[in-house]
């Protein structure tokens, strides 16, 4: 099941050229671009691992794309997302975030039902890959 989160997630995956253009857009606004990766696809997994620091003071997308290339080399079968942080006073948060790499195979989620007091049901989503230990999931 294809994970959708962040911008453009209902579009086909962006090509590197398209990513590069988005990055340049972020940089032109002075946002600090950073990369984060994870192999836990659960939608509530908010805090991914940081790939280096957010890159402040960068002017050109080439530098960011180089960093993305290295991140992909190290984490070939992981989700990688790009975050653009706006440090402007009163904003001080992400302005844009989208997935720039996903594993070749995304097995999806299992829905389990827990019957609790009365006839209530609690639902739980579990990623199939979460059965395996971290680092060996994809």
């Amino acid at each position, binding site marked *: 099941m294809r994970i959708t989160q962040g911008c453009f997630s209902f579009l086909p995956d962006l090509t590197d050229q398209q990513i590069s253009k988005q990055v340049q857009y972020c940089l032109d606004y002075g946002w600090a671009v950073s990369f984060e990766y994870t192999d836990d696809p659960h939608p509530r997994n908010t805090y991914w691992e940081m790939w280096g620091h957010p890159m402040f003071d960068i*002017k050109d997308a080439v*530098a960011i794309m180089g960093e993305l290339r290295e991140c992909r080399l190290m984490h070939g079968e992981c989700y990688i997302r790009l975050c653009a942080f706006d440090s402007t006073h009163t904003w001080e948060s992400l302005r844009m975030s989208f997935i720039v790499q996903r594993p070749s195979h995304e097995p999806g989620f299992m829905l389990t039902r827990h019957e609790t007091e009365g006839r209530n049901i609690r639902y739980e989503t579990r990623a199939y890959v979460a059965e395996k230990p971290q680092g060996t999931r994809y």
Partner: protein
Amino acid sequence: MPDVSQPDALIDLRAEFAGAGLESYLAGLEQELVGLKPVKARLREIASLLLIERVRQRLGYTTEAPTLHMSFTGNPGTGKTTVALRMAGILKALGFVRQGQLISVTRDDLVGQYIGHTAPKTKEILKKAMGGVLFIDEAYYLYRPDNERDYGQEAIEILLQVMENQREDLVVILAGYADRMENFYTLNPGFRSRIAHHIDFPDYDDAELLHISETMLARQNYRLSPAAHQAMQDYIVLRRQKPYFSNARSIRNALDRARLRQAARLMALDTPVRPEALMLIEPADILASRVFTQVPIADG
């Protein structure tokens, strides 16, 4: 814009030149930089070359990105950094760099202090300079032949690799004293072969330095009184003979001190002063310099 689809369509290079906004950069160079005739001539040549190169690229005569790395040699204070800044503007106007920022670094910014520190540091700087110009001042300090375990070598290797492989992303300008740069290139032949343009910055003569001091003051809304003008002339002649003379930079420092003395002199007055007095540098402000007191009097 000439129609390039027709092979015999004429190309109006003047219009190309004007279209790139180059004239404003070069005119600014002529106006704001005093002296430096050979440098300006070389810059014009390079600008023309790049303009032709751009037209050739458009016509499909050439596809390779030209090598634009440069070497600026000259004594301190001869305007290397200032010209590098202009160069970034010219390259941006012609589209040979995309962003046109100038990142000015020295050895400290590139070379780390322990094993494994250098590569990330150098790469960090290179990332900042991508799409612009990387200006390495006193580049010869990168290489220390006396210490074979010096980390400078690592920075040099990364630089050389990027200079070769990412020519379209980054222009590197190396700067420093002429003789030491020459030595540096002899020891690192990789740099020499990757640098297309060598520009030598001559020292300023006394009249040029006087002109520079006037423009520096004018920019800060100061001016020299006629007597101070003469004092400044004498100052420049004497200062040149002193050690650590660094052309325009020495003049700037001297003027900063003159302003300091002017402020002290005005504060010491008991009477109110006219507004013009705040703009005027008097001979006393310049003649109080150590340069005058330490020189033995010629006839005595």
